[in-house]
C-alpha cells in the first residue's frame, strides 16, 4: 500500500512536470515577442486575444496543421529521430531538479522534487549533453548546407562551452560539500553563493547562454547568415519540438543559476512562500535572457571560440584554485 501511494505520487509529479514544461513555451513565446516589440518601440502581438495573449495558441494550431515536410535527400531515420533527441533530455533533466523542500497538501507532506539524487549536478550535465545530438543529427540529416553549417557550429560551441560550465559549478560543489542540488540550496540558507562565487556565476551564466543557444551565442541558428541553422528544413510539429526544447533549456539554465548561485528558494527581506521566491528568481533570469537577446549582437564564430577557451576556461580554473585555497585557509584551525 505504501509503495503504491509513493509510486502514484511520483507518477503524478512527473506528469505534472511534463505538463508544465510542455505548456510553458506558450507564455514564454508570448513574453518574448512582447518584450521584443516594446524594446523596438512596437507593440508586439495585439490581435489574438487580449494584448495577443492567445497568439501562442494560434501559432501552436498553425504548427500542428502544417505540412510535415521531409526533404527528398534527407536521412529519414535521423531526420525523424533528431527532434525527439532534442526534446527528451531537457525534460529528463528536470527529474533531478528540486523546486523546494516540502509543502503540505491536505495534511500530507509532499516533497517538491521527483528524486533527491546525490549526484544530481552530474546527472544534469550528463543528460543535457545528449540534447546536442538532436541538433547535430537534425542538421546532418536534412542534407542541406545551411543546416550542416549550423550543426557544425553547434558541435564546436557545445564542446568549448560545456567545459567551463562544468568547471564553474565546482566552486559551488566545494562550498556545499555535495553534488545534490537540494544540499547545495540548503548550504545557501544564510549567504547566497553569488557572494562567494561571482566569477563562477559569471562563467556559468555566459556558458549557459551559449548552452541555451541564445543571443549573443546563437550561432547554430543564426537567422542572419544561416537561414534558420540546423532546423532550416524542419516544419510543422517537428519544428515545434525544437522550439519547445529550446525554451525548456532556457528554463533549465535559469533554474540552475537560481539553485546554484542565488539561493534557490531561500528568500531575503520579504517573507514570501519559498516556491514563490523560486518562481520570481527564475522569472527574472528568463527575462534577462530575453532582454539580452534584443540588446546584443551575435558574436562572430572565432570570437565565440576565443571567449570560450581564452576567457571562460582560465577564469573558471582560477576560480576553482582560489576557492580551494580560501576554503583550506578558513578550514584550518
Amino acid at each position: 500500500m505504501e509503495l503504491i501511494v509513493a509510486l502514484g505520487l511520483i507518477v503524478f509529479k512527473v506528469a505534472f512536470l511534463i505538463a508544465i514544461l510542455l505548456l510553458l513555451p506558450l507564455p514564454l513565446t508570448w513574453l518574448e515577442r512582447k518584450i521584443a516589440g516594446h524594446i523596438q518601440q512596437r507593440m508586439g502581438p495585439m490581435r489574438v486575444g487580449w494584448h495577443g495573449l492567445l497568439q501562442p495558441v494560434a501559432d501552436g494550431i498553425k504548427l500542428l496543421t502544417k505540412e510535415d515536410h521531409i526533404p527528398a535527400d534527407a536521412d529519414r531515420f535521423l531526420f525523424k529521430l533528431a527532434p525527439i533527441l532534442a526534446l527528451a533530455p531537457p525534460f529528463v533533466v528536470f527529474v533531478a531538479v528540486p523546486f523546494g523542500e516540502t509543502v503540505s497538501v491536505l495534511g500530507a507532506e509532499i516533497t517538491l522534487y521527483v528524486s533527491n539524487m546525490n549526484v544530481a549536478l552530474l546527472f544534469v550535465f550528463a543528460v543535457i549533453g545528449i540534447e546536442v545530438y538532436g541538433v547535430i543529427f537534425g542538421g546532418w540529416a536534412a542534407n542541406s548546407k545551411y543546416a550542416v553549417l549550423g550543426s557544425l557550429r553547434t558541435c564546436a560551441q557545445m564542446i568549448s562551452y560545456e567545459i567551463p560550465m562544468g568547471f564553474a559549478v565546482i566552486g559551488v560543489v566545494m562550498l556545499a560539500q555535495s553534488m545534490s542540488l537540494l544540499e547545495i540550496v540548503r548550504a545557501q540558507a544564510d549567504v547566497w553563493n553569488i557572494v562567494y562565487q561571482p566569477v563562477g556565476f559569471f562563467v556559468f551564466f555566459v556558458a549557459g547562454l551559449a548552452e541555451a543557444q541564445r543571443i549573443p551565442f546563437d550561432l547554430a541558428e543564426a537567422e542572419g547568415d544561416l537561414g534558420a541553422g540546423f532546423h532550416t528544413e524542419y516544419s510543422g510539429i517537428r519544428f515545434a519540438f525544437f522550439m519547445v526544447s529550446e525554451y525548456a533549456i532556457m528554463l533549465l539554465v535559469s533554474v540552475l543559476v537560481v539553485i546554484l548561485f542565488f539561493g534557490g528558494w531561500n528568500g531575503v527581506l520579504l517573507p514570501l512562500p519559498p516556491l514563490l521566491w523560486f518562481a520570481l528568481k527564475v522569472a527574472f533570469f528568463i527575462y534577462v535572457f530575453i532582454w539580452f537577446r534584443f540588446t546584443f549582437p551575435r558574436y562572430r564564430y572565432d570570437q565565440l571560440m576565443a571567449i570560450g577557451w581564452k576567457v571562460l576556461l582560465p577564469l573558471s580554473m582560477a576560480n576553482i584554485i582560489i576557492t580551494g585555497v580560501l576554503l583550506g585557509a578558513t578550514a584550518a584551525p
Partner: protein
Amino acid sequence: MSHAGDRVGTWIGWAFFADLGKALALTFGYMFSRSVTMQYPDKEKWLPYPRYRGHHFLKRDEEGEIKCVACELCARICPCDCIEVIPYEDEKGNRRPAKFEIDTARCLFCGLCEDACPADAIALGQQYEFSSFSSRDLIIGRDDLLGKPGKAATGGAVVAARLSTEKDVLVEASELQGYNWWRNIRQT
C-alpha cells in the same frame, strides 16, 4: 582627464562590461517608452499633415465649373509623364479638359503638377489609401478626380478608426482626437 588616463578608464570600463551595461540600460529604457507603431487599420489611423501630398484632386470654381483650363502645363512638367490632358471648347467658349487622366501607378507624388498649374486647378490631397489589385484601376479620370478629398485642414495625429469590409475594404476614421506620433519618438 589626460588621453592616457582616458584609455585606462576605457579599459577598466571594459573589464566590468560598462559598454554592455550601457546597452542594457538603453534597451530597458526603450521597453517602457511608448510604441510608435499604430494599430492600423482596425483601431487607429494616421491623419496626414495639411502639407501632405496624397492623391490628386481637381478643384471647381465658385460656379461649380472645373477650374482646369487644359493648358497641359502639368502634363509637361510631370517627371513621370503620367498626366494626359485632351482639351476641348465648351458652350461658353472656354478651354476645358475633355479627358484628364492621371496614372497614379506611375506618379511619384512630387507635387510639381500642383506648382505648375496656372489656374490653381490641381492639387495633391490627403488621401493615401488607394491600393488596388489591378494597375489599370489606378488610372484616374477627370470625374473621379473632381470627387477626391481635398487638402486636410488639420492633421498630424492618430485618430480612432474602424475597418469595414462589407462591400469594400474601407477604413472609417473619426475626427482628430489622437496623440502626436512624433512625440513618441525618444530623443537621445
